[in-house]
């Protein structure tokens, strides 16, 4: 990860387990940009994204006991927390706005221009722009929009097996990219 960590992850986890307020501050300083980016990618709205970011930190703080370091990295868990909150938010908004029939994809192009710009992250962001469209599409559908594999197959009008193999290829592509840039 390209972030500057002032503290070892184990120590940070210990702070959070002990409900030490410094833990959540360090967490915010280290991860708020990454989480905010994921949230904004999903909810496509700065204002809503700010609310969800706040909910995310509250949830991380309050439900930290649910984090099991044996099952994966802290960041993976936090992305999952903010992803779930974001998808819930989008779906509840979709219910509210169902008459407007505003799909998520139609908002993508708009929100991309609105998100704030971090010069430090230019290199990393390239992958988002340069990833093959069919790879980007499948990852975004499954990971950011919470589609199940069968929903994705239906949406993209491809066989279920192709959803899997294409996802594997997409992530393989990501892996190669990040391995070479480290």
């Amino acid at each position: 990860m390209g972030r500057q960590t002032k503290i070892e992850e184990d120590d940070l986890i210990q702070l959070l387990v002990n409900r030490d307020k410094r833990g959540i501050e360090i967490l915010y300083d280290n991860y708020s940009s990454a989480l905010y980016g994921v949230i904004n990618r999903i909810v496509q709205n700065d204002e809503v994204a700010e609310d969800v970011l706040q909910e995310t930190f509250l949830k991380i703080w309050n439900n930290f006991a649910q984090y099991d370091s044996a099952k994966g990295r802290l960041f993976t868990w936090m992305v999952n927390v903010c992803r779930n909150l974001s998808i819930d938010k989008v779906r509840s908004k979709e219910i509210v706005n169902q008459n407007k029939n505003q799909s998520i994809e139609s908002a993508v192009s708009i929100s991309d221009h609105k998100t704030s710009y971090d010069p430090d992250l230019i290199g990393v962001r390239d992958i988002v722009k340069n990833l093959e469209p069919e790879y980007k599409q499948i990852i975004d559908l499954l990971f950011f929009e919470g589609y199940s594999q069968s929903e994705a197959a239906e949406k993209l009008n491809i066989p279920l097996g192709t959803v899997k193999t294409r996802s594997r290829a997409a992530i393989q592509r990501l892996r190669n990219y990040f391995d070479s840039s480290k």
Partner: protein
Amino acid sequence: MDIKEYINSGVVEMYAMHALNPQEKAEFEQKLLLYPELKKELQKVQESLDDYSESHASNPRPELRAKILQSIEPEVAKKSKVLPIRENNSLTYKYLIAACLAALVVSTFASWFFYSRWNEAEDRYSALLNDKNQLAKNYNLVKNEYDRNVNDLIVMRDQQSTVIQLFSTDTTKNFEARIYWNKNSHESYIDVLALPIPDEGKQYQLWALVGGKPIDAGVFEITLSGIQRVKDIPAADAWAVTLEPKGGSVSPTLDQMYLLGKAS
């Protein structure tokens, strides 16, 4: 299925992106425990997704930091308000313990109360049992006395019975007795009405006098309860009572004659 084949199917990516249905997810997690290479593969996929997530990073407005961190505070305060719920829990336990103790006190008191009541009842029961036994004894006494009185009456009222009055030979004394003599059966009874209690080693003896000759009719006791049977006497002109050494004498001690009565 071979684990490599399983990995190549893309299931790891589906799991990492939360796209599996619950059944597939459970199956995957089970395999995750069995195959270290599956876990390693998952870690790599998650890492790629983490990196990809991070690629979207954008800084939130700087003002948001204070706002969000402050919002944690009330939540902390709320948490410590949640703590009283735990205290409430322990309060519930306290109430439960208090209730248990109260129940213990009540049941101890009840035990003591009923035990003393039981003791009391036991005592009363014994007393009643004693009373009952006493009554039974009394009844037996009365019954015996009644039976004896009835028997006495039968003797006295028998048409064949003759009553002979015996009076003091010393006219200054009011000693008195009666003889009931059955002329058919010759059964003889004495009813002592008034005689002094004899000295130690002495006993009264009844004599029937036939033609001036005394015949031993037996010794008797001083008792106030009814008539006493003595020896059967076929015939007698007169009856006399003398005081003799205990067990009686062969012939009467005449200077110790207390009573005398003529058969009519």
